[in-house]
């Protein structure tokens, strides 16, 4: 459901949904044949944007939001695939931000990254959460506790508990949440 509408309902345009909901995956997946610039501009071009100055501005803004601009501003023509893993992931986030979605879904965005790259992504999430709804799937509970305001605990496809992050981690209501969080399974 997005704003009360079923996004799987008949007649819903998947392209529109994809514009409203950006996605970042576990493994960084920049378009391998495209430059850094083209990776970020790809979504806007798909949506019909051709104005160079508009594209230039959007690419810079998105890369700045993703904390990547300073590292790549001299190499915008370089292949996106040539960046480090952490940079590639931030490039993917910049690509998602470029089309100004309402929601950004991140599926284990740091699982393939070292602690330094992870810290950058987490700082990035904190810096954009005022303007975007960010939803992260993570198996790293400390990461959930660090970056989120609200946490939902899902187990075997069932929503077990949802609440404010501080309260869920300090004082979970459900016994299953308590056991999962404290590793008292089995």
């Amino acid at each position: 459901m997005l704003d009360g509408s079923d996004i799987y309902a008949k007649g819903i345009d998947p392209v529109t949904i994809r514009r409203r909901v950006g996605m970042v995956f576990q493994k960084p997946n920049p378009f391998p044949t495209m430059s850094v610039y083209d990776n970020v501009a790809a979504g806007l071009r798909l949506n019909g944007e051709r104005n160079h100055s508009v594209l230039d501005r959007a690419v810079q803004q998105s890369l700045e939001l993703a904390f990547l601009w300073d590292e790549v501003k001299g190499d915008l023509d370089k292949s996106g695939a040539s960046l480090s893993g952490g940079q590639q992931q931030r490039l993917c986030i910049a690509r998602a931000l470029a089309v100004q979605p309402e929601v950004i879904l991140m599926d284990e965005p740091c699982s393939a990254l070292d602690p330094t790259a992870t810290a950058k992504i987490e700082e990035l999430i904190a810096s954009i959460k005022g303007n975007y709804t960010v939803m992260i799937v993570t198996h790293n509970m400390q990461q959930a506790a660090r970056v989120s305001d609200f946490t939902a605990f899902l187990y075997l496809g069932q929503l077990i508990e949802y609440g404010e992050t501080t309260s869920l981690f300090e004082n979970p209501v459900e016994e299953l949440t308590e056991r999962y969080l404290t590793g008292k399974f089995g």
Partner: protein
Amino acid sequence: MPRLMDMGLEKLRNMVLDMAELSQNTVSTSIDAYVQGRDLRDRIYSWSEELRMLQDEVSELAVELIARYQPVASDLRFIKSCMEVAYGFSRFGRYAHDISDVIGIFGDLSSCDRQAVKEAGSQAKDMIRLSIKAFTERDVELAGRLKKMDDVVDNIYLDFVKKSAHEREGNLKCVVSGTLILRYLERIADHATYVGETVPYIVSGERSARK
């Protein structure tokens, strides 16, 4: 299968229980020494110092467990409570030392009426015993009794002060020494209540409002 953190939690628990026993003995000895007119300042001071050092050790282990295992939920509540309880036990030691100091300052107090101190002391000792039992056994009902017991100590202290304030012919040495000791006992009773308050928090995350 035990978790890696369990060994550390067990060690923390045992350290806190060691502190519980020592703090109970320290307070009891200081009250008994006052009632019997014995000067045991050195012994009580050394126990009080030991409690302070043990509190540091509890804090260090708690921080280590947090840094190593990032505990959450009941584990986190337990560790946090151990730090609070260890602080309470260390305060017991400090107040016991203060009580024993009164004899050092005022000398012979055998002519003073010590009934109020005996009553408050007995109540404070019971409260310490009860708070330790409630903490050890995670007994919420038992912990809940402490607040009413605390009121008894508060009232003994307040009654003594009010009575002394209106008494023109009282012995100043007895009034001041009695007030000081009752004040220390009143603080001990407060800390025993705080120890009790950790029990529902550990068990269910419930925080009681402090007066």
